[in-house]
Structure formats: C-alpha cells, structure tokens
C-alpha cells in the first residue's frame, strides 16, 4: 500500500509532466486542467501517506552494481515534507491558472512544475543517498528552468544561471558525501549511517558532515551562498512561492535534520550550523529592511527564516526546526501568492510605486496581512509559536554550550523581522496611492489557493501535538524527539523568555511607527543599508570569481594559436614531459 502511494506521489506528477510535454502549446484550457488534475492527484497521494507513515523500508528497486538498491522509506519526517511539497504544489498550480493566464509555452511551465513536485517528493522519501542526490539535482534543474521561464528577459536568464551554478557547487558536497559513504560501506544506505555513524572513520564523517552543510547552505540560500535566492525572484510568482519559499529551499534544512543524529558528535559541526543560521538570519533581515522590490523583501525574509531553521537544527531542536518549516511553508507561500496577486494587478514589483492598494484589493490585503503577522511573529499566528520553539531550542543550547550571544542576536533579528514586515505592509497596502491605476482584486482561482493558506496560517499551530507524534513515532528511531499533547507544548512555549521576545517584536513594530523620531539611528543604518543592498560584498566575491574564470578562459585561448607549427610544438613538448616523468619515476 505504502509502496504504491510512494510510486503514485512521484509518478502522478511526472506522468502529468510528460503528458503536458506531449500536449504541446496552443490549448490553454487543456493545459491548465491537466496540470491541476495531476497536481491534485499527487497531493492526494502524498496526504494519504501521512496516516501510514512508518520507519520501515517501504519500497526497493534493485538497480545494479555501482548504483545500489534504490530504497524509499516513508517515515514521519519524509511524509510530512512530501505532503507539504505536494499540497503547496497543488495550490501553486491552481493559483497559476489565473496568474499565468494568456502566457505562451504553458506546457513547459507546468511540465517543470509537476516534474519538480515529483522530484521533491522523491527527495524526502528516499533513503538511498545517491538517489537523494539524483532528486536533489532534479529540483535544481527545475528551479533553474523555471527561474529562466521568461527567457527573453536577460535578468531572468542570469538569475537562473546563478541559481543553477551555486546550487550545483554546493551539491558537490552532497555528492562527495554519497561517494564517501559508498566507498566505506559499499552502499548508500542512509539508515545504516544514522544507526551507527561509526561505520565511517571520524575524519571522513567530519568531511561528510561539512560537505552536507555546504550542500544545505547552497540549497537553502544560507551564508555564504545566499546570493542566488534574491536573483531567483525573476521567476513567475507561483514558482517563487512553491520552490523558493515553501519547498526546495527547505531541502537544505531537511538534509541537516535528517543527518543530525549522525553528525551531531562531529566536533564543531553543530556550532558551525548554528553560526551559519545566525549570520544568515541577521544579514538577510538587514537586507530585507532596505530592499524596495516586494518579491526581494520576501526573498530576504525567506533566507532569514531559513536561517532560524538551520540555527534550530544546530541547536538540536530538530522538532522546532521542522515545525517552523511547516509554519513557514504555509505563511510564506501565502505571502508570495498574495504578493503575486498584487504584482499581477499592479504590474510592477517596486513597492515605492504601490501604496493604498488595500481599498481596491480587500481580500488580498486581508490574507497578506495574515501572512505578514505570522512572519512578524505576533501571537496567535502559526509563525510566532514555531519561532518561539526555535528560540527556546537556541536558549537550551546556549545554556549548555555558551552560545548566549547567538541567542541574543536571534532575538534581535526577531525584532528586525517585525520591523521590515510592517514596513512592507505599510508601503504596499496603506498610505496614499503613489500611482494612478485601476487595479482589480485576485481572480477566482487565486482565491481558491489563497484562502485555505490564510486559514492554515491561523490554525496550523494547533496541530503541534499530532505533528510531534507523527515525527516522534514514525520517524527513523534515531532522532529522539519528544511527543507531547498540544496543550503541553503551548504551556512550555509561554515561559518568561517568550515575553522578552514579544517585547522585542513589539519594539520592532514601534520602531516603524516612530521612524521619523529615530532619524539618527536611520542615519547610522544607512551605511549598513548600503552594505546590505550589496549583499555585504558577497555579490562582489561572486562577480570576482566569475570574472577570474572568464579571464583565465580568455588567456587560455591564446594557446590555441591555429598555427600548425605550434600545434606540433605541443606534441613535442608533451613527449618531452611524458618521457621525463617516466624516467624520473622509474
């Protein structure tokens, strides 16, 4: 049963992708309905797996010598993320029916979306590390193809390239990890590694652990690989919601969480993970504060929230990280999709040209504000509960490991989050309209996607009890999570540090309203803003690397002289070198 569902949840979207390729362009109704049908089918299959979750191997596909058996385990962690990918994927597809209305080459668009959904589900369900890498790369490929979907736009093409190259670069870390595991154990079985990390020598384990960290950082846009995500915002907005907010970028967090039991004793690894999370969260929050492009602000906030999750994993709060991931997937998808509705209506992404939109788009305003409050961490909304859990995990780690300064930075970041969230909401929906323009509210299909997400943002935190049970009882038994009823969790969250956090959040909000009076601080922040909008120099580093490679490539071309004499010279020189090496080595 479970094996069938696994095959279905990957196969249905992939089959749909294939059909869409075949369908070709020019029949938009057919294309839209095919896409919605197959996305919903995949979503249903993924949801049906939740009650069946088990930590046993559910499916084995023998492949052969060097590749090992392709195994799948639908455990709690896996089915949860699979469900998130498939369900949010379905909503994004439904939303696209309106958003992509009248676009060319819909087949290409939907095929890649469906291909991505299947790949993402496969990524979280497999327990073969090589296969995981395979799916990992598929998601990167789809992400690239979709970022560059509007490929007559050079910015979109450049953004896609950047995302592809950076995530590939990080992917090498995962590949090396897979190779290492195979080299030592003869297979790619993740479960065996989690059960007994000792099967790898300590040095190799450390190598693999940091390789995984690099891969995760690249995928989840963490420091120092964060630069690709903001540029990825050239993608159509439903893609930003699905891939660059709710699912693919979570793959990095998933990877770290999955391997935490194996890597947690690697010296300095948890510390490094936490550090990456803290730096990213803080830096991205500062950048969000100065950005004027609506989607970029959301992108930076995604990076920042992912930083929270990574921080939580490093601190040992696997459950907190996953719960925050859950909340974040919902409210960030909501934010992106409603931002998409705004952009679709206004025709620009620049927040300075918006303002006062609330009156014309009441529904969009309502759902956007819901998402924004969750992001800012106001109580009642799901984001606040999960962020509390993350910070509590951080505090626990601080007590044990002397990392209090990290905790403090994270709390300050929470305040900053509230600040930029309010700035964004105010600039988009309130104040005076800055341009004369008649806009209309979200379309029917958009509403179908937005409203469930908004409701979920309000109530998803109530599921904390069942959620913890799911992860605890059915996840591979190496994580040692605690399952408790919802009420116990809530009581635990409402402790004194929470009040401090809430105070900081409130301070952040007040800072926005009192921004004129804080001119001095603004002045001080201006320099920081400049640095932030240049990604603290990482853009420059990025460009420098690209330029250096380009320079080398250009210089090397001089050696292809096209002169026959020099060509023969190469031959003679090779002969001399080869003979000399042979003589010296003998």
């Amino acid at each position, binding site marked *: 049963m479970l094996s069938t569902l696994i095959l279905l949840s990957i196969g249905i979207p992939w089959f749909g992708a294939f059909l869409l390729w075949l369908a070709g362009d020019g029949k938009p109704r057919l294309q839209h309905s095919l896409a919605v049908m197959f996305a919903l089918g995949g979503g249903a299959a993924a949801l049906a797996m939740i009650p069946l979750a088990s930590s046993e191997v559910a499916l084995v596909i023998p492949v052969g010598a060097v590749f090992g058996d392709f195994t799948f385990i639908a455990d709690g962690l896996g089915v949860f993320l699979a469900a998130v990918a498939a369900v949010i994927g379905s909503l994004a597809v439904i939303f696209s029916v309106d958003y992509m209305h009248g676009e060319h080459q819909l087949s290409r668009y939907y095929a890649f979306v469906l291909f991505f959904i299947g790949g993402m589900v496969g990524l979280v369900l497999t327990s073969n590390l090589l296969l995981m890498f395979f799916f990992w790369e598929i998601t990167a490929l789809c992400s690239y193809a979709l970022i560059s979907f509007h490929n007559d736009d050079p910015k979109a093409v450049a953004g896609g390239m950047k995302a592809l190259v950076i995530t590939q670069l990080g992917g090498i870390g995962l590949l090396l990890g897979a190779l290492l595991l195979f080299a030592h154990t003869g297979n790619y079985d993740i479960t065996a590694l989690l059960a007994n990390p000792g099967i790898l020598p300590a040095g190799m384990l450390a190598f693999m652990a940091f390789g995984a960290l690099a891969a995760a950082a690249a995928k989840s846009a963490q420091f120092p690989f964060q630069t690709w995500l903001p540029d990825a915002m050239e993608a159509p907005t439903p893609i930003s919601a699905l891939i660059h907010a709710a699912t693919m970028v979570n793959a990095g967090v998933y990877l770290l969480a999955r391997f935490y039991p194996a890597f947690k004793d690697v010296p300095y690894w948890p510390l490094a993970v936490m550090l990456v999370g803290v730096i990213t969260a803080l830096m991205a929050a500062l950048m969000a504060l100065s950005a004027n492009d609506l989607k970029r602000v959301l992108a930076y906030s995604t990076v920042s929230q992912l930083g929270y999750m990574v921080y939580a994993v490093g601190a040992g709060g696997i459950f907190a990280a996953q719960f925050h991931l859950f909340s974040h997937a919902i409210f960030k998808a909501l934010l992106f999709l409603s931002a998409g509705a705004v952009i679709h209506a206004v025709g620009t992404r620049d927040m300075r040209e918006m303002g006062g939109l609330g009156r014309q788009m009441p529904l969009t305003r309502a759902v956007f504000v819901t998402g924004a409050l969750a992001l800012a961490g106001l109580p009642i909304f799901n984001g606040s509960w999960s962020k509390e859990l993350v910070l509590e995990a951080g505090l626990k780690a601080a007590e044990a490991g002397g990392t209090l300064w990290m905790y403090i930075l994270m709390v300050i970041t929470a305040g900053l989050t509230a600040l930029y969230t309010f700035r964004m909401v105010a600039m988009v929906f309130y104040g005076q309209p800055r341009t004369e323009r008649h806009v209309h509210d979200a379309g029917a299909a958009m509403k179908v996607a937005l409203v469930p997400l908004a409701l979920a943002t309000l109530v998803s935190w109530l599921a904390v009890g069942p959620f913890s049970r799911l992860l605890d009882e059915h996840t591979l038994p190496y994580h040692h999570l605690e399952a408790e009823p919802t009420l116990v969790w809530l009581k635990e969250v409402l402790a004194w540090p929470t009040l401090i956090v809430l105070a900081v959040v409130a301070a952040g909000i007040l800072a926005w309203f009192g921004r004129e009076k804080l001119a001095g601080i603004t002045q001080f922040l201006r320099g920081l803003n400049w640095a932030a909008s240049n990604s603290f120099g990482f853009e420059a580093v990025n460009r420098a690397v690209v330029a250096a490679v380009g320079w080398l490539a250009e210089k090397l071309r001089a050696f292809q002289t096209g*002169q026959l*004499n*020099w060509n023969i*010279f190469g031959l*003679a*020189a090779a*002969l*001399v070198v080869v*003979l*000399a090496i*042979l*003589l010296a080595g003998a």
Partner: protein
Amino acid sequence: MWAILVAAGAVGCAVIAVSVRRLLVSALWLAGASALTALLLYLLGAPEIAAIELSVGAGLVTVLFVFAINIAGEEPIEKKSVVPRWLAGGIILAAVGLLAFMDLPRLTMGLPEMAGNDFMLNFWTNRRLDMLLQLILIFAGVMAVVGLLSEDPAKREHKEEGK
C-alpha cells in the same frame, strides 16, 4: 665503415632537404635521403625492402612531389619561423636526447646472427592481413585525391559568410 658514410649521407641529405628554400631542390634532396636510406636498409640485411624503398620512396614519391610543386608553384616565404628556432631546437634535443638516453643501453647489446629468411612467406602469409588492409588504405587515398582534386562539372559557388 660504409655504413657510417651512408648514414651520414642520408642525414645530410635530410638536413639539406628541410633547409633549402626552393621546393623542387628540397624534393630532390629528399629523394637522395630516401635512396641512401634504402642503401642503409640493404646494408642492414634487408634487400627486399631496400628495393621497394628505392622505387617508391626515391622514385614514386619524388615524382609526386615534383608534380605537386608544379601545380602549386614555388613561392617565396618569409624565412622567420613561427616557433623560435632556439625553442624548437631545444625541445627536439630534449626529446631525442631523452629517447636516446632511455633506449641506447638496451639496443647496443649486439645483433643475433641472421636466420634463414623468407620475406615473401612472411609478408604474404604471416602478415597477409596487413597486406589486405593496404587495399583499404589505397582505396581511401585514391578517394581522397579524387575528392580533393576533381573539378566539379556543375561547379557551385560556395559562399562563406562571417568566418
């Protein structure tokens, strides 16, 4: 003793063949080098191949060269080489020097006695696959020459744009 003279002659001819400027003269010196090589082969105890080298290498090939030079024509070409001569000389000295250094100790151990030989048997029986393959080589060579030099009756003008 004869061998030294012949060998020196062959090498000398080769040097002149590559260093004179006129192509026709170069081809003739190449024929000389070829003839002396044939002689050296004979001295080495390989009379059959010496005869063949004399007729093909010194004869046929020279004719072909003269033919080609006639069509292509002599042409004064600037003497300055593309690869600096010192660099070329250096790399060749290094390569040949290394080769000689590595090979000579094993090669100068002396020759075994000539065994009773039968070139025809060896070539037509033992190595007959090589012989058959020569047909392929000749076929391909003929194709290539015909293909390259044939004048097309309906000669189309090939335009090349934007090299």
